Each structure stands twice: as structure tokens, then as C-alpha cells.
């Protein structure tokens, strides 16, 4: 018996229905157009013109200047990179980062491997933040009523207004996102303390307020606990996308990965069940995934709680007792989930992402029954990453409605865009101050705009988890005339101090005594060096579970029906939309749908059939007087009664993308009819006293007959051979391999079945005298989060090509993540496969290049020599993995300022050049040269390509395959190792480890089918 299961995975629905890859690509109407000049004439003339200009242009290179410093700073050495530990400010998770500084400016962000939360990874959004530092759209000066002014003028004007408020006792409200820095809290308290009636209101656009509200009721403390996924053997998640966007996805991915040990002597893979309405990243990695409508998810949670209560012999109110699972949920094996949770009690975990206090109460109760508190859930040192209080937000909104707010200061959030507010509400406030660094929806309404720094040019402190503090340090002088929020607030409270002084003062006073360090200086310096510090903070003092809290849980029967629900969700790259003006993130294919540059209505295949819509056609979603027209994306695994739409689109500054992409005659615009990328759905959010809600019942949906083509990369770069070209026997290549935990445990000593050996066309012509670089990617660990794609883009100067070019399959990402589906009954399995140049030993690309622009190196790399390439594209056509990218145009880096983030160690490629993954050869060279300089041997693990460095799941391992002791050599020996398209004998240097599913009883059944 082989431990591998060969399932027929597919990428697009059309493929499952039998279409060959060629049919899947959209044909552009212009391709059939007749051109007035004949092709040969055109080529003749073009050849002459090009030749003539080339010759006439042969001149000396332009004069280049070398401008040294006047006074050499100690820490800057031209040509060398330095890394500074800091904290990411791209979202509220506050992961540890290392800022790569080159010649005095940050050029790349990497994860801090020593950071206790993020464990060395950095997500796509964090990686892309470096581009925003050099964003020319950032405000360059403060503004009064939309006009640029100096800070002195703004301070004078605002102080005058604030003094008035202090005298009159008017209501001042400070509205911010989560600011978990202790110094910010002190400064805000001091500032607000100078007003007779002032209040600080915090909300998170992606709210977890229901969780903290529930804990207030069950444990007497308003908090969001810290979840330890690494201690969990069984996880049940109710709509919590913890690997994608929920609370602290990077931390969760790291700890989720740490618990998976499929290659150990006693293989261990936690069981994970996901109940969700749409296909999320987390759901795609679940062992059992149960699609359910939002109401059904809540119902299932209640049922599960009562099942667990029965097992634990804990009496519960009758109304919470089991009511039985209705027929519509017959596919849900709730008993199995309950059994497995109960079996591993003490090491089980239930998480719920529902913005619904009652469900969260039940979730806490279930965790209490399972004994999760103290093991998988930490209440003593809870997370501080979501401080939002939606009840307070609702209070503020009603105050605004009454016109009772005299001054509103807004920092770190964009309520005019992301909340369902009428613009008049904010416009009606007599004094509106925005701290936004952009001219966004809120700043435009504000009387005063006091732009904050980018987090890479600012001092700051954070405390993402109770007791773990970290510092943000500036990596360069502020580029524009911006000012830190801390400085602005203290200036208005009458103290002119720099953020550095403010933070140091507070740390000396409040944090240093808890640090255990001898002197403040050593504590500060060590924290600055490490990027974080652990403090001996006393527990927050959560009480034991109060059963009385369950009184608040009502028991509504499940109403069976065919009503459609709308679910608004955050995408991995765009999240709440605060980075939607970042082209890297817009062009990043969504891990699941593979769509770029748009949001869309996700429909289940069945609903799409019922509505008779196809992908790219639009539908109209209606409820009451609200309506929304969106293109359709058909999503396998989606619940049939749910339409899901991504948040964060359609904001201001996304119109800049209208100009992205080459200016050529047939280019289509990158924006929609509304002049923006995608549609803003914030008016569909619910905001009640219970908090922000992301679901809406009973919506109507209809086909419009209009089209809005979406740029999806799902059908690009097929590895699958079309049936009519397949070798005889028609065997489909098992590109994705998977196994089960049971198979790994049972067949503990069995070898993977490898492909039969083919006769050699080439003899052993490549000897690798010193190194043979290779990569192993653990498909089991890969969550498809796409951090590696952006890391690669940042490291290798990969351009953004724009929506229209993506539609033409011209995206330039060297590293893509292929997403495959496998459907069996109601279950949809998802597999991710990062795919980059496989650096083949017998590379098909090398043999066809007429100019030897791609040749083999003595270390096993397929070198692509840009200056030799003449752009025949033979290599790309001959590549079985479809990983080569061609520069059809000079994909200009549109924002000149953003070119400062280019990596000087990698050439910027011009038009007509083929390019591809190099295994980050610049890093290999750097490590080799530096080691030789310092006379030390090259250690295993010393070279990390950008993708490996950023991977939060540590799924990618790079190393020397010639060294038998290296980690990669060990991984190649494991039973899960295989190579994609091995049967073609191209000898790829990249290996994959098969997916492991912990399915127990499903195993036999799957095995049988796959071999049929």
C-alpha cells in the first residue's frame, strides 16, 4: 500500500467539466481583427527602424556621478544592508519585523525570527507596507480646510478651538483603531484629561467586539483571550478564519504549524473541523469542513455545546438542549466533532469568529466544558490586538445623530469609508480632526488634517499580548512633513516633546520596573535590539466561568428556508481596505478565488446554475432600497444559501490604478464604472448596540445580463496536460499528492511509490562540485496565505502590470500559488501549491534557447541572463511548470518615489526579456562572499530565499542537497517527499511534501476511489 493518495485535483470549474486548458483562456476580440499592414511588410520596416536607431544610438554611456557623504555616518555603508528590529504597523496584530536598510533607507521588511508571536514570518500586507512608505499619495503637509499649511499654523488653530472646548465643556471624542501601545494610552489619557467631557472610543473595522463582550459576561473581564493553537489537538472553528484574517493570523499560522508533526516517529496532526458559509483560507486547510449558512452555524454551535454538556454531565437550561440536526445539515457530522473534542479535552479548542455575543457565550461555555482555559486559551495574558468596543461606537453614532459631539478626533481609522454612516453625520461635527496620512474619505470631511507618520519613520510602542511589549523604531527620517499622533496630542495638551522622549519616559516609569533588567538603559537597548521584551505583568485577573452568563442566551429554532444571506468578509490581502491603494496587494491573487483587482459576489455553483449566471457576468444584490452590482465568482465549497462579498474595495485612491499598466492601444482600464477598484460594501454592514455585523439576511439577487470581466489567474499557467495531448493511457499527473494521518501511522516504514525510471536522454552531464541548491515545500503546512508571493515581489523588483495585463495572463509574479480543488459529494478539498522555477537538472528551457541566455550553473541553478536574452520565449513555451515570465512591456514603476523601495541587488528588467525565479541568487552570492570574507564555512540555513524567510508556516526549506546533513536532505528522505512532473525526467530541484489529512474513517473510502 502506498501512503500517497492520488486524487484528481482541478483548478477551474470548467476543467472539472471536461474543458481542456486552451479553452479556458478568454479570447480577446481584438485578436481576430484585421491589420491594414501585412505582417511581413510590418516586420521588414520595423526591423530596419529598430536596427537604424540602435546603430545611431551607439554612444558612450551617460555620465554617472558618485556622490559620497560629507560626514560618514557610523551605521551606513554603501552597498551593505543592515537590519533593524521593529514592529509592523500594517494592522493591529503587531508582528515583529526586521527592517532591511540599505544606504539609509528601508527596502524590505522581513519577519523577526525571535519574535514570540510571529515566529519569523511576515504576511503579505506587512511585506507590502514598505511600498507605502514611499507612496507619493501620502500627505506631505498638514491641512486646514483642504489647504496645505505648516504645523505651527495647524497647532495654533487647533489649540484655539480646543481651549474653547475646555472652557465651554463641550463634548470631545477621540475615535481610533486599536492602539495597544501603553504609551499611547498614557498620552491619550493625559490629553483627554484636560477636557471636562472627553472620551476615547476604539473600534476595529474587522471587529471582534462580540468576543470581548462575551468574556465580560462569562469571566468578568473585557478581553480577547490569547489562543494557543500549538497546544490544541482538536480544533473546531465556527467561521473564524484564524489562518487568514482573524485577530492575529500570522501568530495563529505559526502556532497551528508548530502543532503539526507528520514526519515524527509518532506522527501527529491535530484534527480541525471548520463550520463556515464561504470558503476561507482556514476552511481550506480543515480536515472536515462543513458549509453552513450563518444562522445554521450558530445553531450548530448551540447543538455542539449541548452535546458536550451531555458528555460532561453538566446541567444546562432546557432551551439550550439538543434539538436535533435538520435534514439541511445532514452532511454535518456533529457527533464526530463532539467526540473528538471530548476525547482530547484539555487539548481542545473551539473558536468562533461570529460577531454575535450569544454565540460567543456558548463558545466560552463549550471551551469551559472542554477544560480549554489555562491550556489552549490563555486568559491571564490575553491578546490586546482587538480593543474595539462596538457598544461604545454605537453610542458615539447615536451622539452624532443627536448632534451632541462638539469635537471629533479620528486616528488610524477611516469611518467615512468603512462604517455604515451617512456622510452628513461627520460633516455636522463642528470640529473634525483627522490624523490620516492620506487624503481619504475621512480627511476630506475633516477641518484639520494632521498626517501621522508611516510606521517605518516613527517611534512607537506596542503590547500585542499582555506582557509582551515591542518597540517601533524609525528606519529613516520622515520623508514628508508628518508628525506622530503622540506628538500631536501632547503638543495640544501643552507639552512639546518628541515621540522618542514620550515613549522613553513612559517606559522608564511604567515598564522598566516590570522588566527585571538592572538599568533602564540596558532594558531599553536590549528591547530595541531584539524588537520585543517580555514583562512580568501580573495576570489581568479574569474570574472563573460564570454559568449564570448563559441566561442571556436565547434559543431560537432554526428556520429552514431558502432565503439568501449576504456575508461580508475580509480578503487576505485587502483586509479592511486600509491598504487598498497598494498595487502589490491589489495584484496579489486571492488565495482561494485567484482573482485580482476586484471584489465580486461569490456564489455556490448551484446558486449560479439557478440564476443562470456565469463567471464575469454581473448580478444585482438588493435589500430594501440598497442595491449593489457585482461580477460573479463561482466558488466551490460555498454554502448554497450564501452570497459573500469582500470588504475593503471601492475606496478612494484606488482610482490611481486606472493608469497602471502599459499605455497601448488595446489596453482596457483597470478600474470599474464607478472609477474605483471594486465596490464599497460598507453600507451593508450592520451597526447596532450589539456591534458591527457582517451578515445580512433575506437579500434578493438577480441576473443583470451585463458583464464585468474579472482578472482571475486561476486558469493561467496550467500544469495539467490537455486530454488530446496526453500520453497514451491518458494518466493524469498527480501534481498534488496527499496522504492521511492514518496511512502515515500504519505504513510507518513504507516507501513512497516513485515513478518508473525512464531511459536517460542526457548522460550525467552536470556535476555539482560544491553545492546543489534545492527547495522543499511542505504542502501540508502551506495555507496559501501568499506572504511568499509579496516577499518575492519585494525582493526581486517584480513590477505590477495592471488588471488588463493580468486578464491577458501577463502577471509577472515569479512565485505563484496554484490552488486546486477536489470535490467528493458535498466536500470540497483544497490544495495549495507554491510554484516557482524548479531549477531542473535536465532543464527543457536550457536546450531551446538559441542565444544561451538560460544555462545551467555549477550549483544546479538555471541561470537566466537578462543581458543575453533576446526574447524568443522558446524557454517559456518549453517549461513544463509554466514559471517563466516575459516582459511584454517596460512595466514602469509608476510612482517614481516608490522606486526607492527597489532592491539594488537585483537588476530591473526591461521590455522583451524573459525572467523567472532565481532561488534568490543574490542572497546566495552575498552569503558565499561574506562567509569567505570572514573565513567561515557556509552553514545550513544561513541562506534563506525571500519566500522562505517570510513564510509564517515555515513551509519552505532551502538548502544544499549535496550536504547529507542539511535539513533539506533530511526532508527529501521523508516519506511524504515527491517531485512534481517527476515522470518527465526534468529532474526538478524543488520537492514537495504531500498534504496530510487527519480524517480517520474517511481514509479507506478515499483511498479506494483514488485508485479506481
Amino acid at each position, binding site marked *: 500500500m502506498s501512503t500517497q493518495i492520488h486524487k484528481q485535483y482541478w483548478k477551474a470549474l470548467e476543467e472539472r467539466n471536461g474543458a481542456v486548458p486552451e479553452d479556458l483562456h478568454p479570447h480577446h476580440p481584438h485578436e481576430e481583427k484585421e491589420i491594414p499592414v501585412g505582417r511581413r511588410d510590418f516586420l521588414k520596416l520595423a526591423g530596419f527602424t529598430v536596427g537604424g536607431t540602435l546603430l545611431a544610438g551607439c554612444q558612450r554611456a551617460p555620465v554617472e*556621478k558618485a556622490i559620497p*557623504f*560629507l560626514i*560618514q555616518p557610523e551605521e551606513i555603508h*554603501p552597498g*551593505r544592508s543592515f537590519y533593524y528590529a521593529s514592529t509592523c504597523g500594517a494592522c493591529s496584530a503587531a508582528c515583529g519585523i526586521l527592517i532591511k536598510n540599505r544606504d539609509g533607507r528601508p527596502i524590505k521588511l522581513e519577519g523577526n525570527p525571535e519574535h514570540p508571536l510571529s515566529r519569523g514570518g511576515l504576511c503579505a500586507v506587512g511585506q507590502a507596507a514598505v511600498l507605502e512608505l514611499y507612496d507619493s499619495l501620502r500627505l506631505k503637509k498638514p491641512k486646514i480646510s483642504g489647504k496645505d499649511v505648516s504645523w505651527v499654523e495647524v497647532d495654533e488653530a487647533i489649540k484655539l478651538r480646543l481651549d474653547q472646548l475646555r472652557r465651554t465643556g463641550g463634548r470631545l471624542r477621540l475615535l481610533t483603531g486599536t492602539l495597544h501601545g501603553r504609551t499611547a494610552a498614557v498620552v491619550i489619557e493625559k490629553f483627554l484629561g484636560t477636557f471636562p467631557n472627553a472620551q476615547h472610543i476604539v473600534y476595529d473595522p474587522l471587529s471582534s467586539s462580540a468576543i470581548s463582550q462575551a468574556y465580560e459576561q462569562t469571566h468578568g473581564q473585557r478581553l480577547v483571550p490569547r489562543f494557543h493553537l500549538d497546544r490544541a489537538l482538536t480544533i473546531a472553528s465556527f467561521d473564524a478564519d484564524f489562518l487568514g484574517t482573524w485577530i492575529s493570523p500570522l501568530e495563529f499560522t505559526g502556532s497551528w504549524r508548530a502543532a503539526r508533526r507528520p514526519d515524527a516517529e509518532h506522527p501527529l496532526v491535530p484534527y480541525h473541523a471548520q463550520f463556515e458559509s464561504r470558503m476561507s483560507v482556514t476552511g481550506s486547510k480543515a480536515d472536515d469542513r462543513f458549509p453552513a449558512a450563518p444562522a445554521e452555524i450558530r445553531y450548530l454551535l448551540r447543538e455542539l455545546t449541548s452535546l458536550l454538556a451531555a458528555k460532561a454531565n453538566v446541567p444546562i437550561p432546557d432551551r439550550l438542549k439538543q434539538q436535533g440536526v435538520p435534514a439541511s445539515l445532514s452532511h454535518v457530522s456533529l457527533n464526530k466533532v463532539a467526540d473528538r473534542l471530548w476525547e482530547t479535552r484539555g487539548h481542545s479548542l473551539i473558536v468562533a469568529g461570529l460577531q454575535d455575543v450569544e454565540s460567543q457565550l456558548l463558545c466560552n461555555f463549550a471551551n469551559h466544558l472542554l477544560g480549554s482555559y489555562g491550556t489552549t486559551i490563555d486568559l491571564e495574558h490575553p491578546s490586546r490586538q482587538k480593543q474595539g468596543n462596538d457598544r461604545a461606537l454605537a453610542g458615539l453614532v447615536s451622539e452624532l445623530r443627536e448632534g451632541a459631539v462638539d469635537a471629533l478626533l479620528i486616528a488610524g481609522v477611516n469611518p467615512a469609508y468603512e462604517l455604515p454612516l451617512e456622510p452628513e453625520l461627520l460633516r455636522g461635527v463642528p470640529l473634525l480632526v483627522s490624523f490620516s496620512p492620506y487624503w481619504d474619505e475621512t480627511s476630506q470631511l475633516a477641518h484639520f488634517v494632521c498626517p501621522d507618520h508611516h510606521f517605518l519613520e516613527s517611534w512607537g510602542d506596542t503590547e500585542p499580548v499582555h506582557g509582551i511589549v515591542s518597540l517601533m523604531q524609525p528606519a529613516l527620517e520622515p520623508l514628508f512633513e508628518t508628525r506622530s499622533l503622540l506628538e500631536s496630542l501632547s503638543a495640544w495638551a501643552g507639552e512639546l516633546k518628541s515621540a522618542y522622549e514620550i515613549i522613553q519616559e513612559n517606559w522608564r516609569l511604567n515598564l522598566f520596573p516590570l522588566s527585571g533588567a538592572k538599568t533602564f538603559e540596558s532594558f531599553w537597548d536590549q528591547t530595541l535590539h531584539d524588537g520585543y521584551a517580555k514583562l512580568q505583568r501580573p495576570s489581568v485577573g479574569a474570574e472563573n466561568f460564570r454559568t449564570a452568563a448563559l441566561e442571556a442566551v436565547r434559543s431560537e429554532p432554526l428556520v429552514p428556508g431558502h432565503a439568501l444571506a449576504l456575508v461580508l468578509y475580509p480578503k487576505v490581502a485587502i483586509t479592511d481596505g486600509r491598504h487598498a491603494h497598494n498595487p502589490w496587494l491589489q495584484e496579489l491573487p486571492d488565495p482561494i478565488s485567484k482573482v485580482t483587482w476586484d471584489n465580486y459576489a461569490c456564489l455556490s455553483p448551484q446558486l449560479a446554475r439557478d440564476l443562470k449566471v456565469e463567471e464575469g457576468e454581473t448580478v444585482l444584490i438588493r435589500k430594501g432600497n440598497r442595491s449593489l452590482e457585482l461580477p460573479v465568482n463561482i466558488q466551490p465549497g460555498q454554502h448554497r444559501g450564501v452570497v459573500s462579498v469582500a470588504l475593503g474595495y471601492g475606496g478612494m485612491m484606488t482610482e490611481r490604478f486606472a493608469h497602471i499598466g502599459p499605455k497601448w492601444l488595446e489596453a482596457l482600464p483597470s478600474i470599474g464604472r464607478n472609477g474605483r477598484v471594486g465596490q464599497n460594501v460598507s453600507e451593508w454592514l450592520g451597526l447596532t448596540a450589539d456591534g458591527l455585523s457582517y451578515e445580512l439576511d433575506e437579500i434578493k439577487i438577480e441576473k443583470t445580463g451585463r458583464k464585468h470581466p474579472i482578472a482571475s489567474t486561476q486558469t493561467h499557467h496550467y500544469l495539467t496536460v490537455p486530454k488530446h495531448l496526453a500520453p497514451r493511457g491518458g494518466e493524469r499527473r498527480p501534481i498534488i499528492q496527499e496522504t492521511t494521518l492514518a496511512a502515515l501511522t500504519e505504513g510507518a516504514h513504507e516507501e513512497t511509490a516513485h515513478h518508473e525510471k525512464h531511459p536517460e536522454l542526457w548522460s550525467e552531464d552536470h556535476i555539482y562540485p560544491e553545492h546543489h541548491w534545492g527547495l522543499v515545500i511542505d504542502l501540508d503546512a502551506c495555507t496559501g496565505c501568499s506572504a511568499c508571493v509579496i516577499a518575492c515581489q519585494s525582493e526581486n523588483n517584480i513590477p505590477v502590470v495592471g488588471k488588463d495585463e493580468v486578464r491577458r495572463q501577463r502577471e509577472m509574479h515569479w512565485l505563484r500559488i496554484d490552488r486546486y480543488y477536489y470535490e467528493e459529494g458535498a466536500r470540497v478539498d483544497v490544495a495549495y501549491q507554491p510554484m516557482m522555477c524548479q531549477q531542473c537538472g535536465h532543464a527543457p528551457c536550457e536546450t531551446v534557447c538559441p542565444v544561451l541566455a538560460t544555462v545551467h550553473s555549477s550549483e544546479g541553478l538555471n541561470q537566466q541572463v537578462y543581458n543575453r536574452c533576446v526574447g524568443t520565449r522558446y524557454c517559456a513555451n518549453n517549461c513544463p511548470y509554466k514559471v517563466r515570465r516575459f516582459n511584454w512591456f517596460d512595466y514602469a514603476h509608476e510612482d517614481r518615489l516608490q522606486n526607492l523601495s527597489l532592491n539594488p541587488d537585483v537588476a530591473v528588467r526591461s521590455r522583451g526579456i524573459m525572467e523567472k525565479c532565481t532561488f534568490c541568487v543574490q542572497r546566495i*552570492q552575498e552569503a558565499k562572499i561574506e562567509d*569567505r570574507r570572514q573565513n567561515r564555512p557556509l552553514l545550513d540555513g544561513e541562506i534563506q530565499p525571500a519566500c522562505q524567510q517570510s513564510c509564517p508556516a515555515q513551509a519552505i526549506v532551502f538548502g544544499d542537497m549535496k550536504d547529507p546533513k542539511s535539513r533539506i536532505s533530511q526532508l527529501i528522505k521523508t516519506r511524504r517527499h515527491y517531485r512534481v512532473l517527476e515522470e518527465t525526467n526534468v529532474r526538478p530541484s524543488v520537492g514537495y511534501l504531500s498534504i496530510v489529512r487527519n480524517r480517520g474513517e474517511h481514509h479507506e473510502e478515499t483511498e479506494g476511489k483514488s485508485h479506481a
Partner: protein
Amino acid sequence: MSSRITTVFLIIAVLFSFLVIISKLALFRLPGDNRGYEPEQPIAFSHRLHAGELEMSCQYCHSEATSSRHAGIPAASTCMNCHSVITASLGAVRAEEEAAAKEKRAVRPVVSQELSKLYQALGLDEQMKRAGTPRTVNWIKIHDVPDFVYFDHRAHVNAEVKCQSCHGPVETMERVRQIENLSMGWCINCHRDPQAQGIKGRNPSLDCATCHY
């Protein structure tokens, strides 16, 4: 008919282009080959004096050569290590001293014309006091390989390649001039057989990705 016009046009064009080609061919050089390039620099710094006569080590000023990809152009502050004291040639100072002795007056500070450019750049006056705004010294790059080549000084200096192997006898040049052609063939010749060039150490790589990425 129209095709005949095209043909005639193309023939004329080809003849014309030959004329262009022949005149240009004589000037054809590979990218990076700027032999003989000897631009005037903003400050007439003499390598002959510093590296030749005074026998200063190259790495005193180009200190990054052992530790970085770039050898580095010294910052003005490096010049000031000596030139905060030495403000003119010895001859000029002696002449002033003699003149002062003759005229029975205090010795006036002597600042050479070129060094005053350095002090101006740093925003200093003749008494080394701050005066005026500092501005950069914009040296003109001479040895400039194309952007698709990644040359690393570290690797070469640490393999004990002499600076002169690539930069020529700089210590004899009043104004620096490019001597070697810096073309790929020239690089490869040395990489193939470094011993023949008198370079010890390990055999360098011939892989394309050693320099092109």
C-alpha cells in the same frame, strides 16, 4: 507598384545604413568599455600624490572595498582626517612662512585652491569655522560596469586581487583614467586562470549568475 516603391526605398535605406554603420563601427565598444575616459573631477584630487608619492594605502580612503560590494568614495570627513591640518602643499606653507619672516608678521593660513573646494563643500571657512551651507561633492564615476553586472569588491580584494589589476596604475595618475576595458571577456580571462594573472586563492566561479542576476 507599391511593393516596388517599398523595395526601392529599402535599398536606399540599406545603402544609407551601411554608411552609418561603417562610420560607427570604428567607434563600437562593448558596454562598460570606456578606456581612456578621463573626466575632470570637481576637485582635482591627485592619486599620484596620495597613493604614489605619499604611499597611502588605497583602502585608507576606499575603506569599504574589503567589506562591501562597493569600494566606496570617501566622505569629505575622511579627507578632513588630514586636511583639517594640512591646508596647502608644503611648498606653499614654507613660502608663506618665509614671506612672513621677511615681512615680520604673523603667518597667515594658506589654503590651496583645490582644498578650499573641499572646505566649501563642508561649509567651512579658512579658519575651519562653519560658514555657508554644506553641499555634496559630485565625483564623476569612471569605472562603471553596466547595470546588469554585479561586481563585488569584497570578493576580489579578499582574494588578494590587486586594485591595479582592474584600475590600472592609479598611483601614477594625476587624474584617474580607465585603462582596462572591463568587458566580460576580460573578466572571464582572469576567472578562467587566476594563477596565470598572479592571483592566489581559490578558483573563481564561471557561472553566469556569479555576476548577472
